[in-house]
């Protein structure tokens, strides 16, 4: 396989990952590292570097649309980004210390969790009044719905902040956006409305990944020849995906995607435990 063949194959796979990721709202990043390492035999460090770059591309690309619709909560994002950026730098620095087999195993577990989250449905509760600390942090806001502004409150800032720190570490350690963990912190702990938490999380993923990217770049994990088809593929795929409204079939797609993620998770775990990923 020449550089050209490999580039085209990786571009195609990345485009599919970006497309499905944007249709299901799960982001394509989480499947890229396992696919690149397991199917293409690419070293996990290079795979993580390319994946991280594509995470920034999809975050910034789709955040552009969300931010203008007024759903993102910039204050919540900025407050929590302190935790995620710090976590991301720690996680990215740990890559050089943690054995590759352990990274593969952690990756497998995160994938399994993402798959579980995908098919799980939760009762969503929101609050109208912020608690004391969140009031002082001025985190409550409003979002547009049917031409009116709906006000909402925010609670449990310290717990949300802590979970965001973990999301940051995972993002830096694995080269992913860790959107699934971010949504737990905002949806379930801080009780943000669904639309606000998903768009704010997506918006934050770019900053978190940029914090890891500095470390990745200086350690030589970002290879231009590999990151190029991954970034262009994922970005192209997600742009097409975000323009298609196939709401009716999203549930089936989510289930299929969850099965794919689980299969990749099991393979990552097996390879990690056997020492197959170096």
């Amino acid at each position, binding site marked *: 396989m020449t550089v*050209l063949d490999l580039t085209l194959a990786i571009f195609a796979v990345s485009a599919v990952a970006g497309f499905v990721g944007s249709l299901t709202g799960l982001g394509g990043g989480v499947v890229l590292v396992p696919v690149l390492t397991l199917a293409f035999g690419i070293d996990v460090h290079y795979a993580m570097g390319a994946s991280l*770059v594509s995470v920034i591309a999809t975050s910034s690309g789709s955040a552009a649309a969300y931010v203008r619709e007024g759903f993102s909560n910039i204050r919540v994002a900025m407050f929590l980004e302190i935790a995620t950026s710090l976590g991301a730098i720690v996680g990215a620095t740990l890559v050089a210390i943690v054995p590759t087999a352990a990274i593969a195993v952690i990756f497998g577990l995160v994938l399994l969790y993402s798959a579980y989250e995908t098919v799980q449905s939760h009762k969503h509760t929101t609050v109208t009044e912020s608690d004391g600390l969140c009031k002082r942090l*001025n985190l409550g806001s409003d979002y547009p719905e049917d031409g009116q502004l709906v006000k909402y409150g925010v609670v449990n800032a310290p717990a949300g902040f802590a979970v965001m720190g973990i999301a940051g570490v995972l993002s830096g350690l694995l080269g992913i956006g860790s959107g699934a963990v971010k949504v737990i912190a905002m949806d379930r702990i801080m009780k943000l409305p669904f639309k606000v938490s998903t768009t704010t999380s997506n918006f934050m993923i770019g900053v978190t990944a940029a914090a*890891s990217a500095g470390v990745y770049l200086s350690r030589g994990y970002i290879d231009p020849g590999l990151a190029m088809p991954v970034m262009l593929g994922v970005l192209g795929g997600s742009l097409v995906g975000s323009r298609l409204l196939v709401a009716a079939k999203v549930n089936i797609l989510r289930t299929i995607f969850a099965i794919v993620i689980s299969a990749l998770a099991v393979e990552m775990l097996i390879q990690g435990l056997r020492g197959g990923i170096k």
Partner: protein
Amino acid sequence: MSTFQEEKIQTQNIIGRMLQIGVFLSSIFVLVGGVAYLMRHGSELPNYKHFAGEPPQLKSLRPIVSDAAGRSTRALIQFGLLLLIATPFARVVFSVVTFARERDRLYVVFTSIVLLLLIFSFFGSNGT
């Protein structure tokens, strides 16, 4: 709608536009660099199986910028990727300014901390 609301919407419009332009510019550089790279190196054999790390000139800002202006197609792609990484950077800088204009001291502090962390990630971590 109050002027505060209008200003909030205007700010968000600017952030959205900024992110779009950043992603677009970066994709152009990556695409042009990528096509040139494939024309020059497309028939070679890839070597991604074993991690060796990138050469020093692809690991920090200054050589990437100067090589991208020169003849290195890989540096040109890397420059595009740097632009991409810069989009969230620009957004944080913009937020510091916005909160400062709103005289929201607490959030000027928060956004400045995020900015310092990003700067640290780029300049504080020396490659090993």
